[in-house]
């Protein structure tokens, strides 16, 4: 059901939405909805949050949002003491943060190296994957307000070519 509901999002390619087979993790069972934008389109996380909010999920369901990992394409810039991924053709940007795991630290290092190679000038288009902060929690608290902006993501993956 969630797979179909996510596919209803206008900019989500309904042919590229998958609900990955859940695996039992202790008391609760997790599942992942994998989605992809239509060709030439981008997905607005505000709209995605609005859609999740519309579920009106309440206490007692023993369910919640564990995490949201996104992939975005844009240019790296260093401004206001922040490392940012600026989305072309959009007002949006992500603040990039370093995580604690080995994979996260390695990915963040690649980001900083790409910026260093360009002497901290705006880089060419790159692809960054990361976990969005503030997108997690149990219902209904996770639904009550839009996660803060600017959005900060913990980098989990980097590709120099989009």
């Amino acid at each position, binding site marked *: 059901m969630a797979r179909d*509901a996510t596919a*209803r999002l*206008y900019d989500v390619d309904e042919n590229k939405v998958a609900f990955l087979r859940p695996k039992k993790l202790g008391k609760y069972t997790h599942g992942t909805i*994998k989605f992809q934008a239509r060709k030439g389109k981008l997905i607005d996380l505000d709209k995605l949050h609005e859609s999740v909010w*519309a579920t009106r999920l309440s206490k007692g369901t023993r*369910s919640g949002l564990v995490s949201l990992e996104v*992939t975005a394409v844009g240019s790296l810039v260093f401004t206001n003491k922040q490392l940012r991924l600026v989305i072309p053709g*959009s*007002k949006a940007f992500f603040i990039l943060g370093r995580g604690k795991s080995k994979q996260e630290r390695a990915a963040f290092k690649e980001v900083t190296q790409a910026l260093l190679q360009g002497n901290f000038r705006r880089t060419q288009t790159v692809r960054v994957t990361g976990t969005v902060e503030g997108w997690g929690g149990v219902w209904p608290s996770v639904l009550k307000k839009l996660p803060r902006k600017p959005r900060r993501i913990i980098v989990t993956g980097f590709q120099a070519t989009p």
Partner: protein
Amino acid sequence: MHPRIMTLTLGLSLLAISSANAQVISGNMTVTGVEMH
């Protein structure tokens, strides 16, 4: 076996219209509380 999320249901019906503020090309949303059938 058809997995479904227990209560994350029809509310996801709002349409996301194209926005000048859109950001991502893909994502993975992980939820908990999944029922197995």
